[in-house]
């Protein structure tokens, strides 16, 4: 009542800002998704401004669902997110268990390991796709060219030359094709986010019950059983959180796709929206609504998991 009113009002600015942030643009997207709205339309100039007169109902949704890009983008979104999730969790658990015990240089190892996480996405993409994965000029191309030239020179060598002449010339893999560039994205994001998983799993491992472990050892549990029956269940919750937080981040992956895949046909949902948004705003908005629905499905699970522990 009286004495508490002011303190409670203090949350108003944050709430109002976020309410605005959520309702206004999302409302506009919803509205645009139901009208014909095309930025450059020579024969239908009335479509170039948003207006209720251009009502299209679910037409944009139908259009989007029909376009083969949409299905491809969804598939690709799921492939990329799924790939990253699997790899980061797998490597995350392995590395966290590996470095959890004290050993010389543990601090430095941690610092080295965590570093990729702070690289800005644009730099991450440029670094990987150009300097590392480029089939000609990147480390990928350079290294294979180097190996090939070593082999070539060995062919003329005495005695062992015959052996090397059996070897084929190695070819670098190109990561600029539609599908391989998706793998490139998976690779670079996994590199960036595995440290995040490691960090969380390590934090969680530190709260693992040592006495329980000692009891298990006395009960005759081997290393593998300890890991399988104590450590893994202990990590179940952090794993769920890692999975869901990453899912939310990676479903809206953009910079990496933009840099790696521009023009080669590879795309995910956000990228497709960007493409549509160059001209067909109606379609872009309908795709956006699909993206919101997809994100919400994930978000509901995350909110459940997080909400429970936090508010007790």
């Amino acid at each position: 009542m009286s004495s508490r009113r002011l303190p409670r009002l203090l949350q108003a600015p944050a709430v109002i800002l976020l309410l605005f942030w959520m309702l206004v643009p999302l409302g506009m997207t919803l509205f645009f998704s139901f009208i014909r709205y095309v930025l450059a339309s020579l024969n239908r100039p009335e479509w170039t401004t948003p207006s209720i007169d251009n009502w299209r109902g679910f037409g944009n949704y139908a259009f989007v669902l029909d376009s083969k890009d949409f299905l491809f983008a969804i598939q690709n979104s799921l492939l990329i997110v799924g790939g990253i999730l699997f790899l980061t969790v797998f490597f995350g658990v392995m590395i966290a268990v590996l470095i959890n015990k004290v050993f010389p240089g543990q601090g430095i190892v941690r610092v080295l390991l965590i570093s990729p996480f702070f690289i800005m996405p644009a730099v991450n993409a440029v670094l990987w796709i150009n300097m590392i994965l480029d089939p000609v000029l990147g480390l990928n191309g350079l290294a294979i060219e180097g190996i090939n030239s070593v082999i070539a020179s060995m062919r003329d060598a005495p005695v062992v030359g015959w052996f090397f002449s059996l070897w084929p010339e190695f070819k670098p893999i190109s990561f600029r094709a539609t599908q391989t560039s998706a793998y490139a994205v998976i690779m670079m994001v996994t590199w960036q986010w595995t440290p995040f998983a490691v960090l969380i799993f390590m934090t969680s491992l530190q709260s693992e019950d040592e006495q329980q472990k000692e009891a298990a050892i006395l009960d005759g549990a081997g290393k593998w059983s300890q890991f399988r029956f104590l450590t893994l269940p202990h990590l179940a919750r952090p794993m769920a959180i890692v999975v869901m937080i990453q899912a939310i981040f990676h479903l809206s992956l953009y910079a990496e796709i933009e840099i790696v895949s521009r023009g080669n046909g590879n795309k995910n949902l956000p990228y497709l929206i960007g493409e549509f948004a160059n001209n067909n705003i109606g379609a872009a908005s309908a795709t956006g609504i699909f993206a919101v629905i997809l994100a919400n499905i994930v978000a509901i699970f995350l909110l459940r998991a997080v909400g429970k522990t936090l508010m007790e």
Partner: protein
Amino acid sequence: MAIVAQTSKLGIYGRPALAWIVALVFFFPIFWLILTSFKTDADAVKPEFLFFFTPTLDNYLNMTENYDYWRFATNSVVTSVLATGVALFVGIPAAYAMAFNPARHTKDILMWMLSTKMLPAAAVLYPMTFLAKSLGIFDTHFAVILVLTLVNLPIVVWMLFTYFKEIPKDIIEAGQMDGVNTWGEIKEILIPLAWGGIASTALLCFIFCWNEAYWTVRLTTTEAATLSKLIEGNRAPEGLFFGRLSAVSAAAVGPIVVLGWFCQKQLVQGLTFGAVK
């Protein structure tokens, strides 16, 4: 202890060795970026100079000419610092209210704030561009700061909330009994007590702002463009400029990586909304 005896020779030497190998593998791309930044553009694409070359500082010295680096860097600093400041300015009172004067709906409000974070940015891309352009704030610092603030506000409120909740309520109440008003509670008690938590929140928020790569790319062209935009605009697959591109990239991420080393712990709390401690 008997348990120590179980550790085999392999465990004693193998584990650290493996850990070091893994760490070096993960760090290698960054090492490679730094290494390349000291090569000339020509050397950078020659196999014979993979590891042995004549290092040069030219790439760093010429960053301004080549990329106008400092302009973008200034934009990054200005927008990140101000957005962090505004987020704290709005977030501290909000988190204070929720932590110490919870109402029936506080929990729902917090959850809802978190859910705005999950709104895919791409879904509102066009409306945001449209709004920014019609309000005349497209490609301005103001727009970038506003968006960065909004994007990070939920995380800021959540992190502060988890820190504030650890302060015993008694202390705040003692303050009330001692005659402080609401502003005094925040200024005299809360901020000095939660100083560490507020600093880590600020640090993390700053890192997120600095690395943000959707809105900073889509809502700017030149005036307010940040380092993300700079790198994105020079993705140059031709490979002619690997040396200088590496230098400017290293300069863009260097400060943040170092900052990041200092807030690993907070990162866990912040990114998992306190659910993993």
